């Protein structure tokens, strides 16, 4: 049974005359990784900061563990871990001093060595933070966010600046936390990260959630695609009638592109037509929509995706 840890209803946030978040609704359940995607300025970080209790909403309701995160912070914070988009620690502190401070501020802290081992920073424990690379700072951030064994973890672009190996390591850490029942809210610009990790995905654009659901649900929003090189001597009208849409502009450029929600049916029609005409279909491809297709669809034309 789904147990909500976060409930957001008609959330709105204004900065003066600018409405950064324009009435969004979603729920995050226990043990779930919920990915919040969107272009820069879509409202992801503002949404995260409201749920984290760092910012009061202008309107709407936000509940974390059934409590208001901005006013019930004493009861909410011991159960949450936060990794902000930008790390914030004085550069003159060493890695170990920063972790020790955070341990002293946390109700259920892990050991300092354990936390540093987790993110592969044990060998950098006596290095000042100002000397760390961007990726190492993100790993330190992750160590601090997970130090209190949180039930709910907020990760704002956790793998930005990480090398591929560190990114995979972070994914392993997140999977281990999920296996323990930790709920995670993640924002990322890496769509592959959301595809790999998220149970559910929301794509924001200009302050609204345009698409929300499981990866399969989200991909359903965008049509699949069949493409092949236009055979010599074939005119637009020679092509068989398919249930999808043939792109006339691509046709003029020498490619037949069909956007369809009936991939199997339309592919069968195309193959039967080609066989019947004895036509070879060069570079034939048939793909379901990718998360990237949906993301770009939302960014370019939100109303269609919705």
């Amino acid at each position, binding site marked *: 049974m789904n147990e909500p840890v976060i409930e957001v209803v008609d959330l709105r946030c204004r900065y003066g005359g600018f409405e950064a978040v324009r009435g969004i609704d979603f729920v995050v359940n226990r043990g779930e990784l919920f990915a919040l995607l969107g272009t820069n300025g879509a409202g992801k970080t503002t949404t995260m900061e409201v749920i984290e209790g760092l910012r009061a909403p202008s309107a709407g309701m936000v509940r974390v563990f059934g409590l208001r995160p901005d006013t019930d*912070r004493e009861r909410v914070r011991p159960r949450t871990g936060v990794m902000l988009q930008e790390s914030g620690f004085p550069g*003159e502190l060493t890695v170990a001093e920063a972790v020790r401070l955070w341990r*002293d501020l946390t109700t259920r802290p892990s050991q300092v060595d354990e936390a540093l081992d987790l993110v592969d920073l044990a060998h950098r424990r006596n290095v000042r933070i100002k000397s760390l690379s961007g990726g190492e700072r993100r790993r330190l951030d992750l160590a601090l966010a997970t130090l209190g064994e949180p039930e709910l973890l907020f990760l704002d672009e956790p793998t930005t600046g990480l090398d591929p190996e560190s990114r995979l390591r972070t994914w392993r850490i997140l999977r281990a936390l999920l296996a323990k029942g930790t709920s995670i809210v993640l924002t990322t610009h890496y769509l592959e990260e959301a595809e790999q990790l998220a149970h559910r995905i929301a794509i924001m654009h200009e302050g609204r959630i345009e698409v929300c659901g499981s990866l399969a649900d989200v991909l359903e929003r965008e049509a699949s695609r069949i493409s092949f090189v236009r055979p010599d001597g074939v005119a637009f009208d020679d092509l068989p009638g398919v249930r999808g849409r043939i792109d006339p502009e691509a046709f003029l450029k020498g490619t037949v592109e069909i956007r369809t929600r009936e991939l199997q049916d339309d592919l069968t029609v195309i193959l039967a037509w080609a066989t019947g005409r004895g036509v070879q279909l060069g570079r034939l491809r048939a793909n379901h929509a990718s998360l990237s297709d949906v993301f770009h669809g939302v960014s370019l034309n939100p109303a269609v995706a919705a």
Partner: protein
Amino acid sequence: MNRVAALARVELILLLRNKTAASMALVMPLVLGVVFAFLRNGDDWLAPITTQLLVVQALTVYVSTTTALVARRQDLSLKRLRSGEAAEPVILAGVLAPMVLLGLVQGTVLVGIALVAGAPMPADLVAMAAAIVCGTLVAAGAGLATSAVTATPETAQITTAPLVAAMLFGAMWVLSTAAPSPLRLAAPGAATAELVRAGMEGSRSVLVPIAVLAGWTVATVLLGLRYFRWEPRS
């Protein structure tokens, strides 16, 4: 309390690792204090001791708290700390605590140096202690309030300068009259100077200057909390 101590310990480490801030907060007030003690006019110890305490409260407490709060806001430490379990007043108390403690210790040490250099024993120790404690607290409150209107640690030198100057002039203004009015005592530095005078001479009322300093402390803290920003303006 443990959380305040943890934050204060880190803040002290940072102060000691920043040579400019450390010399401003630790060395400069003590050097100036000793200089004032030896440049006094005859047997007049009131002006040197008042100046010593005000320099400590201005530089070690007021300027340093303003700079520390703005620097922590600038490097996003305050935002990071606020995302954790520590409550907002605990975070602020942790950042301010080292400067307040240093102010108390330095104030006491400088009065001790003055005594060793020949100053008479204060006639009213409670008044002298009140000058050190209340003056330090109002300086910390003023630092909190000034940090709200200070964008960067560098500009803290500019935004704190008017009040530092006002504290020294306010002290001279109040010491220039034998029976200052409550309005005159409300000037920056004036109530502290009046408490030092009460401490040195005895037999003077300390209630009004203490009430003035308590009022200023509450006002500056409330003002600071009302307009305090936890992250840089974007």
